[in-house]
């Protein structure tokens, strides 16, 4: 089933996006108990060419030092912290500086080659928080409610395919173009047809999860110069299966629903907020829902600031 939620503040100012998404996803907890995640845009405030990395590190002696040694070959480390996640792993969060964006993917690939570490994400304009467990527990563990931003997307997962772990939790990120994230509710039935041409172009897939395939597809379109709305329209034509996909970009959010409308998606807005979710009960946390719009089969909606 899975639950999806997203919101954007129209005034372009930062607000309590973490708190809003926590309450929106908390209302959708019944749709998926396995894991949950957030991508909160606009509050990270990193200087140009600085990136935040979230790295899962097994609790083993010297492993953290090995990661730091690898990082320092590319960059000085800024603002590091260790977040306790579970008995087996910690999340090492740090800030680095790179000369250009293409070096980020290269660095992440190098880090992923170290045994027992997994880079969860690397970002410039958004903060990624995802883990196994329930929304409220993850939100508390990572202090999500304190995180500000202009917009964000989130997910609560009922795993129907691929693994249940931190990396497989949504959102997924692509490094084809900066800071694109996707959460998804459904199944992509022409997965290999979409994945194959992307791989031929050199895009690396790390999982068999169809959301990873979608985020690369979306990022590829955006990198070709498509606008968000055009990208979503292309997704409706090219992707098969039941789905509602919710996309986050550095300046907007958007949803696309499959041609048969087999997965839910509703939206509501007022002068301040544009919000999307699987169900009305999620929207009720952030906007007056007297007027709720159903996203129709094959329809797309987006809002950019």
């Amino acid at each position, binding site marked *: 089933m899975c639950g999806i939620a997203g919101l954007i503040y129209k005034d372009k100012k930062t607000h309590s996006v973490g708190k809003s998404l926590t309450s929106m996803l908390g209302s959708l907890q019944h749709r998926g108990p396995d894991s949950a995640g957030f991508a909160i845009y606009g509050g990270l405030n990193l200087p140009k060419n600085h990136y935040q990395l979230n790295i899962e590190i097994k609790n083993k002696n010297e492993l953290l030092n090995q990661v730091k040694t690898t990082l320092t070959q590319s960059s000085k480390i800024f603002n590091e912290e260790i977040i306790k996640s579970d008995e087996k792993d910690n999340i090492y969060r740090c800030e680095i500086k790179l000369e250009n964006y293409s070096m980020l993917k290269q660095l992440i690939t190098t880090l992923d080659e170290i045994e027992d570490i997994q880079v969860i994400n690397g970002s410039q304009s958004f903060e990624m928080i995802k883990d196994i467990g329930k929304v409220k527990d993850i939100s508390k563990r990572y202090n999500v409610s304190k995180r500000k931003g202009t917009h964000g997307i989130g997910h609560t997962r009922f795993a129907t395919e691929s693994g249940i772990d931190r990396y497989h939790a949504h959102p997924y990120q692509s490094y084809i173009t900066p800071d694109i994230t996707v959460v998804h509710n459904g199944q992509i039935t022409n997965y290999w047809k979409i994945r194959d041409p992307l791989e031929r172009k050199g895009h690396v897939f790390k999982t068999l999860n169809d959301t990873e395939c979608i985020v690369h597809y979306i990022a590829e379109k955006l990198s070709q110069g498509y606008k968000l709305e055009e990208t979503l329209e292309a997704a409706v034509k090219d992707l098969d299966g039941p789905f509602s996909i919710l996309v986050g970009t550095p300046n907007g959010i958007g949803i696309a629903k499959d041609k048969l*409308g087999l997965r839910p998606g509703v939206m509501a807005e007022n002068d301040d907020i544009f919000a999307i979710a699987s*169900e*009305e*009960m999620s929207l009720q946390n952030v906007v007056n*829902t007297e007027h*709720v719009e159903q996203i129709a089969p094959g329809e797309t909606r987006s809002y950019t600031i």
Partner: protein
Amino acid sequence: MSEYTIDAKNMEEKDLTRSIKEHALNYDKLIIKNPQSRHNIAAGVTEEVKIEIDGSAGYFIGTMIDGPKIHVKNNAGWFAGDNMTKGELIIDGSAGDGAGQGIYGGTVVVRGDAGSRTGEIMKGGTVIIGGNSGFMTGLLMMGGQLIVLGDVTNDAGESIMRGTIYVLGEVKSLGKNAKMEQTTLEDQKELKTLLTKYGFEITDIDYTNFKKITNKSGKPLTE
């Protein structure tokens, strides 16, 4: 009339419906405060009690009811009135996909718009949509009557086998096995009786403008 108010704010879904069933035995009317779009509200209630939902309901509001008259004062989620056999479900706002799905009897009224697949596999009863209805309205319909005062989008009456869909607005396209014709005077008279009962005020000329969608064949899936 005896009334009882249930505050649903901190109630689990099953506890809410259990409370509704218990109090339906002793009261004429139940008012549900703070429904917060919960799913399955009043599922399986069989008492002829009035139930007023003071807000929005989630998925499957009034599923499998046999008797109560439910009034939702705001919106409803997917599958409103699913498989109901007797009673009334009135939604003042909009409804999600599958409103009136599989009903055998009774009446579902949505005063605003409905999503897709309205009246899917309905076998009897009446569904009235005051606004527009989406994709595949009346999908696999097997009986009853479905009335839409606004527009319907693509594939109306997809694979319809029996029953009738009346549409006052535009029909974007018909689904397989569906045909469209003008209404008879008898149809118009029945529509007026029904719509007037539920407070829809439309002109006499409008009644002549209803389109009637029925099945071409009684066995569309075996031909």
